[in-house]
């Protein structure tokens, strides 16, 4: 893939830091996001990655898909590992043991590794103010272990542990608002993004890279396998998530909200929901309920953004 405009964001747009030959599912938007995002970070980058899809598709010993220094330690501790890396290279530069230069430390985890099991480590790392970027690639369930619900699974979605049934509508809780939690840590940069909008995404990665202190980017990563959609529809559903207002694209720079792409007038959420197998059991009543929630959340986001 050669995108001329990539050159605005990266010195070597053709160089792949996430190489081909990995074992990601067809149509995986997560590996697409990382492939693009890592081009912006460039070669002076160290990646810490949580256990999850991106880890298991990329590094069966003795092979690797990463052309960057990369480490995987465990599931819940990626932000803590990144804290150690940032502290380690910092002190080694201070002591003159390694040459001083800007090295980006990037922590990457899925929605389970971020909003559930890794939340404490992430909160600690953001509070301590480490100079690093945390990317949550959110495919809205534990896809690696076979589509179990996380706190980032949207209301109504069917997963293997939130199955619809006589006494269940599927996921009965609202998606945890991770970006808002990140914002509450008063860090310099927070953003949402989706690889269906690559240049919006890349611009945000660039800001995160340049931020002094913690940056958090929450990337909606469409998962054809887990969402039960055709594998050639990942980009399409990412766009629909944004255009319906279900997943708005915005950034929060030093506390100031800015919507980076306005989808108004919002498309009805049914356009997003209808084609996805994970929502196929939803009644019109429930879809209306989701629509009302999206309307409220969108107004809420707009009111924050207008405060600037």
């Amino acid at each position, binding site marked *: 893939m050669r995108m001329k405009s990539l050159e605005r964001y990266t010195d070597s747009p053709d160089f792949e830091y996430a190489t081909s030959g990995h074992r990601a599912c067809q149509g995986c938007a997560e590996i697409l996001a990382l492939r693009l995002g890592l081009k912006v970070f460039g*070669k*002076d*980058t*160290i990646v*810490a990655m949580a256990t999850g899809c991106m*880890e*298991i598709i990329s*590094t*069966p*010993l*003795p*092979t*690797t898909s*990463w*052309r*960057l*220094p*990369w*480490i*995987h*330690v*465990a599931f*819940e*501790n990626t*932000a*803590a*590992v*990144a*804290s*150690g*890396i*940032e*502290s*380690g*290279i*910092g*002190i*080694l530069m*201070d*002591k003159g*043991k*390694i040459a001083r230069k800007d*090295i980006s430390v990037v922590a990457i985890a899925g929605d389970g590794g971020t909003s559930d099991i890794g939340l*404490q*480590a992430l*909160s*600690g790392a953001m*509070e*301590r103010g480490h100079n690093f970027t945390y990317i949550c690639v959110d495919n809205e369930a534990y896809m690696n272990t076979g589509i179990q619900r996380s706190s980032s699974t949207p209301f109504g979605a069917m997963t293997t542990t939130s199955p619809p049934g006589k006494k269940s509508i599927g996921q009965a809780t609202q998606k945890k608002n991770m970006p808002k939690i990140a914002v509450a840590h008063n860090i310099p940069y927070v953003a949402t993004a989706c690889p269906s909008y690559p240049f919006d995404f890349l611009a945000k990665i660039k800001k995160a890279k340049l931020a002094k202190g913690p940056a958090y980017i929450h990337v909606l990563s469409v998962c054809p396998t887990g969402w039960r959609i055709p594998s050639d529809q990942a980009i399409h559903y990412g766009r629909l998530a944004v255009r319906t207002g279900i997943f708005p694209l915005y950034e929060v720079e030093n506390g100031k909200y800015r919507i980076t792409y306005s989808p108004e007038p919002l498309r009805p959420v049914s356009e997003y929901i209808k084609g996805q197998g994970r929502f196929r059991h939803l009644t019109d009543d429930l879809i209306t309920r989701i629509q009302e929630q999206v309307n409220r959340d969108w107004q809420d986001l707009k009111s924050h953004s207008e405060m600037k």
Partner: protein
Amino acid sequence: MSTKKGIEVSIAAAEAAKLARVEVIAAYPITPQTHIVEHLSEIVANGELDAAYVNVESEHSAMSACVGASATGARTFTSTSAQGMELMHEILFIASAMRFPIVMAAVNRALSSPLSIWGDHSDIMAARDTGWIMLFCENGQEVVDSIILAFKIAEDRRVLLPVMVNLDGFSLSHVIEPIEFPAQEDVDRFLPPYEALYTLHPDKPITMGAYGMPELYTEAKYAQEMALRNSKAVVKEVLDEFSTEFGRKYSIVETYNIEKADTVFMALGSINENIKTAIDNLKEEGKELGLVAPRLFRPFPAAELYDVLKDKKKIVVLERAMPAGATNGPLFNEIASLAVTHGLNAQLENFILGLGGRDVEPEELMETYEQVSSSTKVSHSDNKNYGVIGVRS
């Protein structure tokens, strides 16, 4: 010039980490480890040590940050106790398997519940099979010396494994002892800066922590196990080198009064000082009791223990951790295994004692000696394999 002073052992442990010029410290406070990390914070805050102190939000993150820091090539130190060690348990395995030479002062404490902040070995015995090299200390001087030499062992290219320096909570960590501190320049000569074999750095991108498919996992674990087993020779070498440099001689198995004694006690940690007092008291009564104290617990010094135990008639293993349904306590099980594999022809006895900070007086130990001396079967019976000293049942 070395200096000798009366100092709290925890403070001395922090000073030892400073002498080792640690570069990253990631720690979370837990009693009775707190004085170590408090003093290290102070040392870093005062600019006396060029190090990054990461105030992590849990012990799980402490060990995780240590792994990240060590992966960059920084000399890395932490300390914990009890619940904290259990919380970082998962990452202890990963630190050793990924071959990071982290050093941890483990201030041994009882595990909850009931909640107890006081000392015993239930924490370290629950973590004994995490692949770390494990040293046990009897007194403050050993703590200081062990922290310094632990880095030398850990960072040896033939080893590259993390090392835990165990010291008993309160009964050792909080006592004031006269301790000799080696001079910085001598420590620098003994322990040069850490040069990591592989690091996370953009100049040479490598992948760390790949996963193992069934066709490779066994080989990976075998390689790690061999490294741990082979580290024993390096531990011995480093102890000898330490003795040449600083004059204090340590061995991986310490003994006391074993020449004439047919009966020996075996235990880990500071309780050995009480056992020595009991031995001295018994000697005045014309009775001979010996002590065999492994300073190195992992890798287990089986051959060295066999050498000192092979002629003994009665071997009494004292441990500060409940067997939790096992046949016997963990140290006894090692000795029982040794008896079978190497052939010890001795009466083996096992006692649990000193749990949750319960004091163990030399008199109780002398009484245990008398019981064992006058019987061929004390702690074993049809329905139990060990005795619990001082328990009100």
